[in-house]
Each structure stands twice: as C-alpha cells, then as structure tokens.
C-alpha cells in the first residue's frame, strides 16, 4: 500500500554519461559539461529551460580542487539555484533524490542533476587521500588504508554466513562480463573465478579483482514535474520511491555482517513506492558494488535475499542478465568503473535506460517495469535508494 504523502509526481526524461576511464584528459568541469549536455539533448531541453541544478561529488581532495560544488556549477548552474549534496559514496544516488524533492515539493519544474569525480589526479595513489576519513585520535595513528575497513566488513560477512571467496568472486565475474555490453565501461572483461582468486592480494580477503578501479567520469540526469515530462516524452520514467539513512560513525562498535542502515533506507523507499515484497515486485536492480562482496551485502540489506542467502541466489543465476532479477546489468562499478559520485548516478541512469527500453546491448531479456538503484558510503554507514517505474 502506498503512503499518502502529499507531493508531486516526478519523472526522469534524459540522461548522459562520459566514458569512465583512468586519467581522463578532460578537466572535471569539462566532464560534467559533457554529461550535462548529453542529458539535456536526450530530454530535448536547453540549459535555459532548467530551474535548479543539483551537484554531487565526493570529497574535494580527489580532484584536488576545493569547493567543488561551485567549481562544477559551471557545467550548467551559473545564475541558477545550485546545491551540492555529499554523503560519501552514497552521493551518486543522493543526487537524484535531492533533485526529486526539488520537484516533488513544487519548488522546481526542471532540474539538472550532475555527478562528477576525478580520482586519478591524486599522486601516487588516491588511497593516501582517504586517510583523512578516519578518526584522528583513535584510528589514524594506526596508519589505516581505506581497504582495511572493507576487508574487515567482508571477512565478518564471510564468517557469520559461512561464505567462501569463490562464491563472492562470482559477482566480479558477472559484473565485468555485463560491462562488455556497456560502451562507457572501463574494466569490462571475460574473467573466471580463478582469475579473481589469482589477482594481487591487497588486504586479505580483498584482492585486486574483487575491487573496482580508480576512475574519472561524470553523469547527469534531467528530472522534471509530470506536466513537463508529458510534454517532452511519451516514455517518462517515474521516481516512485526514495530512501536514505545513516548509521553511527563508530563502525567499530557495530556488527558489520549486515547493512542495517540500508534496510532503513530501503524500507522508506518501498513504503513510498508501495512495494511489499521486493523479491517479487522488483524486476531489475543496480546495487552498489565497489567491491564484489558489497553487491551481495546490499542485496540482503535491500531485503531481496534473506541474510546470508544472496550468494546462493547468485549461484542459481537469479541475478544474471537473463535471470529473474538481473543485478548490475550495466556492469556496475566493478565493470564500468568507480568515479565515486558519478558511479552512483550511473547506476540510477542504468535503471532509467532499462525502464525506458533504451539500454541497447545492456537491455535485460525480460520485460521490466520496476527498477532500483542504490549507493553506499562514508564509514560503511550511509545508504541511498531510488525506486523507479515506467
């Protein structure tokens, strides 16, 4: 049953992506401009038609430019209402959520939602920039690497649910294979489980092919009111549910095997969209997959699989491109790349194109009516969910 909230209907009518690559020649502004231009072209709108702009980007340190919201506003936001949202890795899906409430509230008719990230300028490696996310007093003195926390979460998830590395590696195999169909992808490949298990060990149990690459890229969407959408397209895709939630920053003090914050976010989005049984009612999903275990973790947090059951469903083919609930048909972050905020918006765009039927070689085999995109970030504590229908 849908909740009786009093807001306007909101549609997506255009989207654009740049290539996702390491060391892009274009500047962050140029990347953001390119994605915005493509989104406006698909929507059939000009920049002058846009009322408000929402910009998403992860910490400024990656691009090496401070105040990146204002900096990226040059890709469409000059002389307009602009806001920047940032919830770590969850930012990419917070961007369409923020654009949604700009329109749903009645404040704006036409919103341009932009996400950009350029990870590769940081030398010698963006890993060193991540040091500043840790608690300066209780954590930083141990010289942690960002991958430490994800390895700790992955190992806890494996231990509690008795899941093997082989079962988890299947996510990487699936997503990198799906990415072969994606013209924007950076890390598409036909790999085997053995290839993943033989790759460089970073922080056991995380190996190099369990992770997404360092990437540069941008994504953009045009999000409008129902009236505007009906005037500009015969195939609008509706944003029917949004949800976001945060858990405590003291990740040390909570059990890491299950993403509780995601369950809260998902429940909010499902209630809004009138979804009672996500496994039966959702046709295609793009859960956030910066690491292969994370896709499984998220499928459980989204309540599409019971706790500890996602690997079994994966092995049965449920999440394959021709399965019952195709998961990451775009290729995900593992296959397409991970320019953080842009990657989350890329996932939302993937679902939009699936529901519009314009996903090209990425289009899933079965007819789809309800799709979901999700992102996750900060100290393993933030999640954002969007449910869309055609």
């Amino acid at each position, binding site marked *: 049953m849908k909740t009786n909230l009093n807001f306007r209907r909101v549609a997506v009518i255009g989207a654009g992506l*740049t*290539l*996702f*690559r*390491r*060391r*892009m*020649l*274009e500047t962050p502004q140029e*990347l953001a401009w*390119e994605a915005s231009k493509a989104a406006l072209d698909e929507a059939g709108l000009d920049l002058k038609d846009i009322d408000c702009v929402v910009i998403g980007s992860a910490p400024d340190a990656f691009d090496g430019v401070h105040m990146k919201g204002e900096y990226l506003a040059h890709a469409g936001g000059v002389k307009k209402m602009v806001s920047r949202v940032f919830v770590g890795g969850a930012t990419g899906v917070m961007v369409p959520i923020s654009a949604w409430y700009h329109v749903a509230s009645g404040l704006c008719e036409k919103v341009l939602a932009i996400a950009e990230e350029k990870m590769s300028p940081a*030398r*010698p*490696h963006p*890993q*060193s920039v991540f*040091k500043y996310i840790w*608690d*300066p*007093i*209780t*954590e930083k*003195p*141990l*010289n*942690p*690497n960002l*991958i*430490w926390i994800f*390895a*700790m*979460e992955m*190992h*806890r998830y*494996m*231990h509690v649910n008795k899941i093997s590395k082989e079962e988890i590696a299947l996510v990487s195999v699936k997503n990198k294979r799906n990415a072969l169909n994606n013209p924007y992808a950076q890390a598409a490949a036909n790999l085997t489980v053995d290839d993943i298990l033989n790759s*460089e*060990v*970073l*922080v*056991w*149990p*995380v190996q190099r092919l369990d992770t997404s690459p360092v990437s*540069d*890229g941008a994504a953009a969407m045009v999000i409008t009111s129902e009236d505007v959408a009906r005037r500009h397209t015969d195939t609008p895709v509706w944003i029917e549910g949004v949800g976001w939630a945060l858990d*405590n920053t*003291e990740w*040390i*003090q*909570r*059990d*890491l095997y299950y993403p*509780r914050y995601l369950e809260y976010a998902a429940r909010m989005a499902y209630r809004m969209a009138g979804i009672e049984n996500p496994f039966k009612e959702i046709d295609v999903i793009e859960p956030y997959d910066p690491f292969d275990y994370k896709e499984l973790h998220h499928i459980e947090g989204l309540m599409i699989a019971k706790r500890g059951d996602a690997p079994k469903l994966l092995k049965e083919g449920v999440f394959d491109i021709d399965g019952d609930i195709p998961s990451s048909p775009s290729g995900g972050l593992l296959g397409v790349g991970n320019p953080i905020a842009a990657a989350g918006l890329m996932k939302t765009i993937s679902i939009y194109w699936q529901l519009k039927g314009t996903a090209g070689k990425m289009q899933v085999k079965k007819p789809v009516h309800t799709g979901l995109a999700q992102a996750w970030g900060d100290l393993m504590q933030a999640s954002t969910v969007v449910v869309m229908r055609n």
Partner: protein
Amino acid sequence: MNGTPLKEEDLKKIHIIKYKPDAKYSYTAGQAYSKFLAGLKEKKIIGRKCNKCGRVYVPPRMYCDDCFKPTDEWIEVKDEGIVETAVASYISWTRERLEKPEIVGVIRLFPSRDNDWVFPGIFHRICVDLEQVKDMSVFGKKVKAVWNEERIGSVNDIECFKVVE
C-alpha cells in the same frame, strides 16, 4: 569528444605539480577521548555508560546516540575481548606493497555478549599468524592487550592484541 583517456606514455610527458600543504592540526580530544587517552597511559580502557539503554561506549562518548541524552558514568572495561573480524594488509596507507602483511581487526571488549549488535569495541593490530586470519580460525578467539612499556596516552600504547586461549 566523449572522453579521451591518457595513456601510460602520455603520462611521462605531463608536468606533475607537487605541493605539500602546510596543513597541521591541533585536534581537540574532548572530555571523553582525553579520559580515554589518559586511561591508556595507565593500562586501562575507559568507556562511558548510558544508564537508560545500558550501552557502553568504547571509545567513550559524552552523549548517547540512541537516547540523545548525556551518558551517565565512566566505566573501565577489560583489556580483553573477542575477535569480531581480522584482516591482513599487504599494502601501506599509500598503497605501497608491504613485505610483511600487517594484521588488524576489531575486538569486542568485555563486558559484552556474543549477540550484541552494538558493543564496546576497539580497532587495533592483532598479533596472530597469517594462517589463522586466512582460515578465519582467529574469529571468536579471546584476546588480551599487549601494553607497551613506555606509554604516552595514545592508541599506540597498546602494541597489539594477543590470543589468550
């Protein structure tokens, strides 16, 4: 244009700007962390307890997230606990390759119960064999802090946590 990535050889031709920002910080530990750090100097792990929900915060906090009220009392927890998770890092914090992997993890400190979702916890080095991390046999093991002789009031006053059973 749709994106034009640089190749490895292009990278040799570019100018790299090296700049070390003069960014030094004097962090405020606050009441809770100050007491925590002072406790470490005396081989004690200090937390704060909320008497309303019973939650023990280690590292300590002056207010309870859940009850949204001040925590009520200082409490000393044991320097012993159970390994919740452990990993072996083959890379440094700048992603350089390490010769000997570093083993770190999370320890659920006592008093706490096996099925607590939130618990007093500490993130630290665990001195254990690599094999016990790989086969996960270190999970659930009881460990105890190995304190350094010289202590300055830092999390590094603990050398690591060692298996005691």
